[in-house]
């Protein structure tokens, strides 16, 4: 990897009892997608929640170590400002149920300072375009967000995240609640988004990691076991544990 956009250094976290992740050192390049894989409970969701300071919002949560964004430790910055630069998309689509499609995307702007009507229209349009949703919703932008299918709702949440104009996009199993066609659309979207953003995606789906990620990191029992180019991880993993996991023999 030539350049680093974001880096975890000696990152450990817990929920008050034993450690959830231990001493993670992992770098993410600009304009690339990195998949985080590993069995349930291995700490991959905890890890990405540490990357935008969401983990510390859980009761009794602790974080030690550093997370650098463009060379500066995000744990020495205002958490709200950090979250504006690092967007997040969750497992289940979570649009604001009482808002329209338009307002769901525009809502991201309201937390981001004042924008003129023209600016808001422009950013909503660009975000829906970037989330590959514009063509499907352009004729009913003021319908309720819950009128959309699950796959469309997930892309609406991605559009909402993009409207805040983040630099990094975290995705926590973004396709696990979607059907295959919706999954394919979101994967196509990730493939496009990684040209502009640093995308970090947690997935249980091995083939999804193989399809969308440039690099893949394998976590097990809260530790980073192996990270490498995705094709290396799936063709010739160095660690036996990785081999066993990616070939579906344990997890």
């Amino acid at each position: 990897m030539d350049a680093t956009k974001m880096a975890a250094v000696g990152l450990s976290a817990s929920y008050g009892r034993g450690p959830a992740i231990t001493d993670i050192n992992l770098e993410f390049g600009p304009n690339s997608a990195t998949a985080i894989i590993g069995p349930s409970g291995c700490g991959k969701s905890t890890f990405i929640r540490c990357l935008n300071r969401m983990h510390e919002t859980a009761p009794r949560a602790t974080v030690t170590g550093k997370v650098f964004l463009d060379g500066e430790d995000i744990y020495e910055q205002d958490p709200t400002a950090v979250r504006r630069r690092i967007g997040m998309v969750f497992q289940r689509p979570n649009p604001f149920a009482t808002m329209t499609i338009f307002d769901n995307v525009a809502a991201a702007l309201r937390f981001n300072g004042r924008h003129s009507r023209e600016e808001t229209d422009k950013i909503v349009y660009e975000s829906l375009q970037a989330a590959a949703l514009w063509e499907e919703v352009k004729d009913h932008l003021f319908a309720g967000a819950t009128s959309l299918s699950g796959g469309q709702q997930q892309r609406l949440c991605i559009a909402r995240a993009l409207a805040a104009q983040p630099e990094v996009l975290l995705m926590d199993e973004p396709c696990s609640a979607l059907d295959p066609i919706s999954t394919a659309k979101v994967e196509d979207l990730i493939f496009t988004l990684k040209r502009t953003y640093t995308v970090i995606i947690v997935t249980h789906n091995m083939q999804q990691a193989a399809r969308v990620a440039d690099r893949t990191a394998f976590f097990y029992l809260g530790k980073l076991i192996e990270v490498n180019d995705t094709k290396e991880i799936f063709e010739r993993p160095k660690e036996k544990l990785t081999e066993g996991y990616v070939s579906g023999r344990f997890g």
Partner: protein
Amino acid sequence: MPIVAERKAFSAGLDELNENMATLAELAKLSIRKAVATLETRPEAIASDGRDVFALDQEIYALKQQVVKGCVDLIALHAPVAKDLRLITTSLEISTDLDRIGRYSRDIVEISNLLGEEARSPTAANVDLVRLGNLAIDIVDRALTAFAARDAEAVADIVRRDDPIDDLHDKVFREIIERMTDHSISPRAGAEFVLINRYFERLADHAVNIGLHVTYMVTGVRPRVKAEGAKGPFGDPS
């Protein structure tokens, strides 16, 4: 503790693939042995060996088709990765090498039948052809032993053994031309000997291919055969 999955359907498919590949390898070995025998043994034995080689060629082709279908099914149904994927893709490639070995053996027997006793006349060219055939048997045996044993190191020895085979091929070629020029063998026999000579050299090349495939299957690294004039059996891995 991790939850361990046997992946029973997938494992059964891999077991079947391994069994078919082992059988394919045995059939290919038998085929080349019997083909070489038709150049040196008595007519009645030759007739029997020749018939066997034709039957083996058909059997090898049918089993190769079964291997290809099995590999496609495993890829489509089980999305294999890592060493499983390497086993499957390597089996696809080696099955093609084995199919070619079966086909060359058949071609040799066809020529042997065509030439009759002339194919077994004790000319220097013929004697060296048999020697070349035995070297081809040996190198194919070694490659298939490496495949069975998943021996990634054997390829270095296999590549080394291919060089004298290439040299002998060149020497036999020159001898055949000389015999044709001095009329000690007919132009027709000479032309057919040239073909057999070429088939043996190609059989050895398939053995080298198999050795290289085995190395990739075991290590995940594709070795490269040396460039012309380079020292050592390999260039840098790709």
